[in-house]
């Protein structure tokens, strides 16, 4: 069994050299940095962190040097995220990288709480936001941040967007309205019960008048404070010529309230304060739920760019200097220490490095980069210090662009929402007309009940599935997908994706990797395959040839010298003192003085590279396209979901057929020009199929544009330029089947809600119109219907368990070993 690190959960290769005595047992650790962090956590008496966390911590990086954090003491930098409070303290608003569950926020709050100068600290595990109020006369911000870094977290001066503040204000206002309505309702209902009972038991007129007066007193703030959003919405709708659901709601509330006030002062007739107040309360509940779902969705997947750090280390002529990111110019060189987030888009300057691009792609596997490769802001440098040449800063970065894409897609309205909106307008006009007709009929038949019946009709009709639940379902559904690394560029894509019957795949870059891989090593001279591969890899590490990328990274132990590349033939050089040739068969064999060996042919499918030395040919490496990992399983799942699959490729029939065979796809077309691919899609569409095109988006934009729903697979920098409706941010197709399932589920729930709304109204409206429903029963029925459809729509926010763990490391069994 391999040991796992107590702190970060990484596998440790035996033997374990670092351990820590904690909670009565010795636990292994992977690095000095993790050891320092775990020791500090133990010595602070916070061992509980390891017991209760639900996700392993981020690996410690040892970046707790106080010098690095001293930059945060500079006034001009603090101006961006620190506010001075009247009592002389200051409040910093920061994002903490590495916070993965509630235990993390507990750890930071407990460890920082007792520190001198810290007045208040709160970490929200959901948004990873930290509010830190401190006394600048006692301590410095840089010192506090260094302490947080010592716990293994990375505080970032995030930009608190105006949207966040507005969201918080909206939530607080909603809560206040809700509580006023709730408390008011409980009071008014009490008085109403007393009055109903009193009507049967001869309540004195004096007390009845008093109760009515008190009811009015309590109902007034409910209607005029909690009810404001409805009146405002109704007014907006009327001015825009599109009466929404707010109009009948407002009419009902206003009419019930006005009539009750009139009757209270008259001292005769019925009062409906209870109905009006109950109506406001339940509708506020539904609104609040819908708002919470929306905020949660936005907070989790939107506003990506605020995760970027605000300071960077520039390598100037006078050595490294810390400064704000906004002061950087394209062409500057920026030093990114291990564990830090890359603050800018640019190119890797002078080293190879590994980056975690999970913020963009949802995939936490490290990405290996070489000098000159594009590096994206928001990725985390994992191992060694890297230098990045700045290309784009701030709003120009890919991360910011993707953030904007998400926002634009959200602002767009899917066709279905457009339709339901139009239907809702007609529906509401119909309801108003119906109420007027019913009122007129009752006026002739039984004038004293006319008002009550009109009120019941206005209250009972529920267009909420049209006006509230459908948009909510789309917002929540899109955000749930975004969290899985599936971005929708237009809101309608969710609908088309759910209706797709056929998926056509491009081959290169979609089903297979862009670069080839070694499929087979054939030792010829009796050597061991792994050793021969290492020799070849060492030689190829000096080559710029595209095929060189097929070889694994070279081991450092093998010394390589005297490398000469012979274009069209191969490469020759000394590896560990041995002269080797790697390339075509003739070239590699020509180094030998011995006679030509038995006839050997290149492998049937792809290409072969040969390795030879002075004794003759040593090995043959077969190089072929590699099917991306997880592709076969994804395609099988898609077939299981009832989709017809096909491959359309510009490549030759040989390789295309091989890939199709491997993946079990029976329909494939090879050697297609982009125009021919488009024809293929058009033909399928003429047969009534709804076609989704999956490509890498680089050379197949015409087909993507012609398909009903265009899905682009890709990673990193090229993503923002695609013309697709739907972007899979991860490197492979793994997320496509869940995306299709989720799209179908969203549409299913939308349809459910619409059917419910129709059924409910068909039953309730005639009952109300015939005078069989009291206004308060109508209010209850309509509110229950609203809550039902809203809850149903919010169900979409929950992820299937498999997907929830895909992007975050699973909980480590560390806690189980602690007592």
């Amino acid at each position, binding site marked *: 069994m391999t040991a796992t690190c107590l702190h970060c959960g990484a596998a440790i290769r035996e033997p374990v050299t670092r351990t820590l005595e904690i909670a009565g047992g010795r636990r292994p650790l992977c690095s000095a940095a993790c050891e320092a962090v775990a020791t500090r956590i133990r010595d*602070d008496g916070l061992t509980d962190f390891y017991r209760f966390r639900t996700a392993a911590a981020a690996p410690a990086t040892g970046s707790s040097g106080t010098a690095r954090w001293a930059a945060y003491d500079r006034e001009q930098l603090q101006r961006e995220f620190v506010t001075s409070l009247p009592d002389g303290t200051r409040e910093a608003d920061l994002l903490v990288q590495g916070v993965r569950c*509630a235990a993390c926020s507990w750890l930071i709050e407990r460890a920082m709480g007792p520190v001198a100068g810290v007045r208040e600290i709160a970490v929200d595990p959901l948004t990873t936001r930290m509010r830190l109020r401190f006394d600048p006369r006692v301590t410095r911000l840089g010192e506090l941040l260094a302490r947080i870094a*010592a716990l293994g977290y990375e505080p970032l001066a995030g930009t608190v967007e105006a949207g966040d503040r507005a969201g918080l204000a909206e*939530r607080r206002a909603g809560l206040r309205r809700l*509580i006023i309505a709730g408390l008011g309702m409980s009071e008014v209902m009490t008085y109403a019960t007393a009055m109903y009972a009193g009507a049967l038991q001869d309540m*004195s007129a004096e007390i009845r008048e008093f109760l009515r007066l008190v009811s009015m*007193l309590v109902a007034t703030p409910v209607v005029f404070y909690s009810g404001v959003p409805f009146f405002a919405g109704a007014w907006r709708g009327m001015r825009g010529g599109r009466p929404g659901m707010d109009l009948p709601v407002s009419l009902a509330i206003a009419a019930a309230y006005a009539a009750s006030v009139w009757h209270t002062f008259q001292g005769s007739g019925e009062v409906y304060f209870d109905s009006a107040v109950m109506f406001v309360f339940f509708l506020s509940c539904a609104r609040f739920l819908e708002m919470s779902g929306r905020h949660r969705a936005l907070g989790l997947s939107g506003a990506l760019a605020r995760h970027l750090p605000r300071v960077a280390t520039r390598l100037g002529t006078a050595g490294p200097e810390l400064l704000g990111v906004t002061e950087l110019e394209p062409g500057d060189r920026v030093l990114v220490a291990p564990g830090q987030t890359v603050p800018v888009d640019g190119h890797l300057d002078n080293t190879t490095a590994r980056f975690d691009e999970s913020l963009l792609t949802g995939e936490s596997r490290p990405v290996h980069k070489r000098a000159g490769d594009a590096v994206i802001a928001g990725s985390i440098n994992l191992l060694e210090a890297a230098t990045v040449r700045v290309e784009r800063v701030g709003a120009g970065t890919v991360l910011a662009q993707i953030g904007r894409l998400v926002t634009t897609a959200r602002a767009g309205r899917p066709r279905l929402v457009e339709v339901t909106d139009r239907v809702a307008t007609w529906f509401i006009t119909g309801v108003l007309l119906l109420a007027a007709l019913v009122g007129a009929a009752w006026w002739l038949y039984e004038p004293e009940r006319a008002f009550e019946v009109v009120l019941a009709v206005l209250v009972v009709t529920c267009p909420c599935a049209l006006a509230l639940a459908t948009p909510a379902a789309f917002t929540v559904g899109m955000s749930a997908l975004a969290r899985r690394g599936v971005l929708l560029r237009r809101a309608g894509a969710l609908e088309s994706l759910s209706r797709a019957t056929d998926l056509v795949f491009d081959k290169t870059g979609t089903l297979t990797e862009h670069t080839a891989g070694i499929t087979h090593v054939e030792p010829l001279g009796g050597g061991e395959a792994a050793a021969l591969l290492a020799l070849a890899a060492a030689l190829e590490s000096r080559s710029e040839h595209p095929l060189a990328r097929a070889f694994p990274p070279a081991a450092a132990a093998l010394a390589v010298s005297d490398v000469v590349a012979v274009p069209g033939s191969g490469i020759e050089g000394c590896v560990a003192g041995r002269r080797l040739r790697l390339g075509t068969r003739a070239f590699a064999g020509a180094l030998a003085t011995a006679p030509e060996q038995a006839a050997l042919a290149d492998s049937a499918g792809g290409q072969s590279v040969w390795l030879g030395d002075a004794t003759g040919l040593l090995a043959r490496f077969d190089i072929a396209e590699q099917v991306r990992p997880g592709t076969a399983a994804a395609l099988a799942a898609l077939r299981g979901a009832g989709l017809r699959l096909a491959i359309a490729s510009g490549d030759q029939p040989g390789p295309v057929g091989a890939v199709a065979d491997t993946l079990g796809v029976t329909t494939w077309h090879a050697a297609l020009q982009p125009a021919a691919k488009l024809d293929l899609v058009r033909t399928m569409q003429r047969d009534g199929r709804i076609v989704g095109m999956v490509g890498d988006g680089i050379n197949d934009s015409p087909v993507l544009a012609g398909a009903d729903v265009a899905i682009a697979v890709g990673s990193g920098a090229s993503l923002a330029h695609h013309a697709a409706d739907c972007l899979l941010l991860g490197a492979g197709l793994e997320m496509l089947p869940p995306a299709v399932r989720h799209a179908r589920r969203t549409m299913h729930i939308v349809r459910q809600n619409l059917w419910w709304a129709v059924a409910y109204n068909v039953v309730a409206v005639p009952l109300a119109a015939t005078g069989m429903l009291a206004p308060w029963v109508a209010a209850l029925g309509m509110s229950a219907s609203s809550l039902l459809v809203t809850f149903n729509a919010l169900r979409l926010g929950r992820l299937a368990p498999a997907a929830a763990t895909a992007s975050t490391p699973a909980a480590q069994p560390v806690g189980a070993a602690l007592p």
Partner: protein
Amino acid sequence: MSIIFVLIPLGLGLLGAAVLAFFWAVRSGQFDDLETPAWRVLLDDDSRPPPGGDDPPPD
């Protein structure tokens, strides 16, 4: 029954107090994060940091 002329205004006074208390709680951010407090109750907070725990970490 005339006691309700006293009791109901009294109840309204309490209602007003409850509303004020709630408004204060909303303004001071008590409802902004409803997730962490649910966890906090599971975690021991008896153990105080040992003396000297306030020293800056060795770098």
